[in-house]
């Protein structure tokens, strides 16, 4: 062997469909945790904009431009998605590679919010949780990051090791909602 073959988090698990719903794995992308040091949020935002063209988002929001996005990811934490971090960021924040830490899936289909309503204790109604909005909340028993990516589309991430449970739980919910017709 001359090369270590990479596997995705949901290798062999996806995609699945039930009724109008499709669950598929998000394409592999660099994921970087950015945790600004004391009082460095603005500087980090400026550095991000200069290097990647996106600013730091507010709480429960994401910013994106040209395939690069930044998700609010919790208290004092952001997730840079889609580009390796520019070296300038480390001056203002702890920069930690998390590209392999998360299983990321995409749930699509009319009524997808009803599928997530089986698992997430948060209000996902379209009026209050719009495209680009993001939040941290437990999906079933798993700490998750959920982002609305479209009218009927969500991007969901949980710890990589829990990929099988994530797929199982979402599939069960999809089937339950689909069976009601």
């Amino acid at each position: 062997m001359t090369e270590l073959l990479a596997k995705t988090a949901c290798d062999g698990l996806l995609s699945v469909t039930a009724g109008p719903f499709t669950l598929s794995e998000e394409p592999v992308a660099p994921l970087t945790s950015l945790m600004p040091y004391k009082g460095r949020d603005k500087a980090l935002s400026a550095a991000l904009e200069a290097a990647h063209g996106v600013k730091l988002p507010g709480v429960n929001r994401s910013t994106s431009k040209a395939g690069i996005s930044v998700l609010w990811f919790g208290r004092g934490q952001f997730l840079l998605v889609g580009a390796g971090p520019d070296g300038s960021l480390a001056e203002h924040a702890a920069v930690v590679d998390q590209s392999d830490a998360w299983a990321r899936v995409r749930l699509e289909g009319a009524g997808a919010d009803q599928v997530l309503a089986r698992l997430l204790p948060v209000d996902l109604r379209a009026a209050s949780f719009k495209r680009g909005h993001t939040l941290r909340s437990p999906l079933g028993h798993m700490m998750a990051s959920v982002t609305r990516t479209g009218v009927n589309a969500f991007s969901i991430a949980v710890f990589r090791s829990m990929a099988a449970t994530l797929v199982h739980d979402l599939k069960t919910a999809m089937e339950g909602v689909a069976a009601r017709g």
Partner: protein
Amino acid sequence: MRLANRGMVDRNAPVTFTFDGVGHSGFEGDTLASALLANGVRLVGRSFKYHRPRGILTAGSEEPNALVTLGSGARQDPNVRATQQELYEGLAAQSQNRWPSLDWDLLALNDLAAPFFGAGFYYKTFMWPKAFWEKLYEPAIRRAAGLGALSGLNNADTYERAFAFCDLLVIGSGPAGLMAALGAARAGADVILAEEDFRMGGRLLAETHEVDGKPGHLWAAGLLDELASMDNVRLMTRTTVTGAYDQGTYGALERVSHHVPRSRAPLECFWRIVAKRAILAAGALERPVAFRNNDRPGIMTASAVRAYANRWGVSPGKAVSVFTNNDDGYRTARDLVAAGVHVAALIDSRHDGPDLPGVHVIKGAQVCDAAGRKGLESITIRTHRGEEKLLTDCLAMSGGWNPTLHLTCHMNGRPAWREDIQGFAPVPGMIPGLQAVGACNGSFSTAACLREGAEAAEDALEALGFKPAALELPQAEDDPFRIAPLWSVEGKGRAWLDFQNDVTVKDVKQAAVENFRSVEHMKRYTTQGMATDQGKNSNVAALAVLADVTGRAIPETGTTTFRPPFVPVSIAAMGAGAQGKGFAPQRFTTSHKASIERGAPMIEAGLWYRPSYFPAPGESNWRQACDREVKMVRETVGICDVSTLGKIDIQGPDAAAFLDFVYTNTFSTLKVGRTRYGLMLREDGFVMDDGTCARLGETHFLMTTTTAAAGEVMRHLEFVHQCLRPELDVVFTSVTEQWAQFAVAGPKSRDLLDALLDKPLNGPDWPFMACGPVTVMGVKARLFRISFSGEHAYELAVPARYGDALFRELLARAGALGGGPYGMEALNVLRIEKGFITHSEIHGRTTAYDVGLGKMVSEKKDCIGKTMSERDGLIDPMRERLVGLKPVGAVKQVIAGAHLFEVDDAPVRENDKGYVTSVCYSPTLGHMLALAFLKNGPERIGERVKMVDHVRKIEALCEVVHPIAFDPEGGRMRD
């Protein structure tokens, strides 16, 4: 008896079903109860204690008598209310709590012995002889008690849980609920309208009142059409709101497919509805009147009789009589006459009741007895002229109405007594944000319900910040509610209050005589209100009887209170998803698949699955594999996935100061590129966790935790930082999942790595406890020279995507060197041989001092837990402290969980000297080994103690040895 041209069942859709094996037919739109009544079935169940024959009492979820079992096998469903169950083709119902049959029930003998079975009789007997309680009395009582039976088989249906959010939750779809929902919906609020029934409309479906000049149910249908067309409205039928909880959270049970045999949809869904405001429009429940033998099949609430006639087109009898203490009973007589049913008489306990054309109204009279054991045949009427018998096969009784206020009591609020309705009504504010309207607020006329519903919508809209929309109040009856209290009819014999639990007026009176005068005492002593209806049919009357017998007014005697759930909810619904694997997430390492391919049995460890051992050809048990794997690590090289250990990336100018504060030992002095073992205490001074911590850069550390405590440690670090030391400029995040990490352990580990890594290791750069970046086949990796086996060992970490490939590569290379994978069993033996502790030893009750690491608590600095660890009781040498044990007597076995004693002492608590935490057979040393906690242990090395395990009957003489049994100098891992 089915009535022509009445009701809302679909006469073009006949449905066949069976009850106790007998075939019957009904129509779509029937409940099992309405269909049974239509087929003339009156005896449907037996009571709990006296096994009295019982019929249908009500037309709703409060039914105490008509409980049946549906289905069979794993789908057997006991205690289903026939009054709520929708009929479907092929439905098969069985009666309950009878033997050998519903008709001939042996335990009906209990009824004859009733004088001896009064309230609380069992507290006074069955005491002698003592041993008979468990052997004779209790089994007999248990067999006689209970209602339906569980199948005993694993649940085979699917259930789900879901969350919903809204501005306004409206509970109940009668006139009040419909107006409230419409008012709020038109103004643009997000509305959920929840209705227990399978059809919306509430009481309007059961009455003949007109609303806005048309039949009430048609008015409701029109309004429902409008609601159904609105995006901001969710109509939920078959959904009972079961509980009111804090901050506007409501529990609700949706019976999704109980009416659809073999549906693919879940059977039930348990909802958690979060509502900014709620309107309770749950209506009211009619109360029975207590009189002698008022539990005969055929005696029903008047509103139920009316509902069966109007909604289902069924008359429960051929000659119906009515007994009432209020005007409402007249409606039943009126509607029955209109439907062509013979009304034998209307008995009004009041002298001033109205007249009703075509009906023989007997005023100032009472029903004082009923005859017809398995079905009503006659009643006895008492008037000022004396008693007379009346032939009747159905008695519709009305003792007045109780507002369905149950939800309002769920947060400890107490309702208030209202003389005008002779009932309890909610008080505003019992549930923050919830307003009760209509009948459940004690306002019984249709007009009042419509008005209060509309007004409550306005109030809610104002609170929510919406501008109310136009809403016209429809015209409807606004009759006053006139009632004169009548709780129980005087006379001999037993008059039932709580039908299912067989609690009679006599029982309540006897309880009072025995000084169970508090309403709570009375309920607990008589079991009144403890049946499946939770007192919905009996609480107020029982309270009234208690008030009467104790000479107090009703409000002074007590109040009614109710706890969740409003109706019983299946465990499967509220615990949906947990059956099988769902209790917690499963966590899989990247090497899982490869380990399974090698036949490794997996065991769960802190949600992770880890290989127990890797069986080789010819091995017939785990011990052979384990011994081989241990030998392999000691002699060549072994590979073990250690990714499950928690890994926390810690960075910032104050990272080192932070670690100095959370660890007992010092990390600010650690050099970059080096790793140090650290010990963490809880603030109470006991050990929380241990692990290594690597300094990757001047301000960059990587902390390792045990697998089990990873979450707890993360939470602790956040606590220490945010709550105790927020001034520190440090940030951290878990990187457990980012890295797949493998131990490469054994004398040949270096050889393996030199061949595998892109650049061979330069020895002097990689002393024991060194760490740093390396590359593996072009992949950036991290290498740590740490050891949990006592051998020269490394841990190699790569991004998780490469974990599977690297594990396979490592196994191939180890195999070529005579090594291979090792599992948890071998890992455990390796660490016991070395005296390394795990959570078997740091089990939350041990200190650093106990585990021999007292010196790791730095004297030069403060740290979490330091002060409390210095308490007298925690530094007493006579504490149980860590030692090794080696069997030296005839019995060569040691076992975890055994206790330690002096050799000549009796093995009793007073002599207890300690206990064994971890044991193994050491293939390296050729005997069994144990880690144990022994009083003053470290001072007793070389002495002998007795190990006793009572439960597995093992006693062994042991020598106390140093916990590090193998290579105590540590040369093997350092060199």
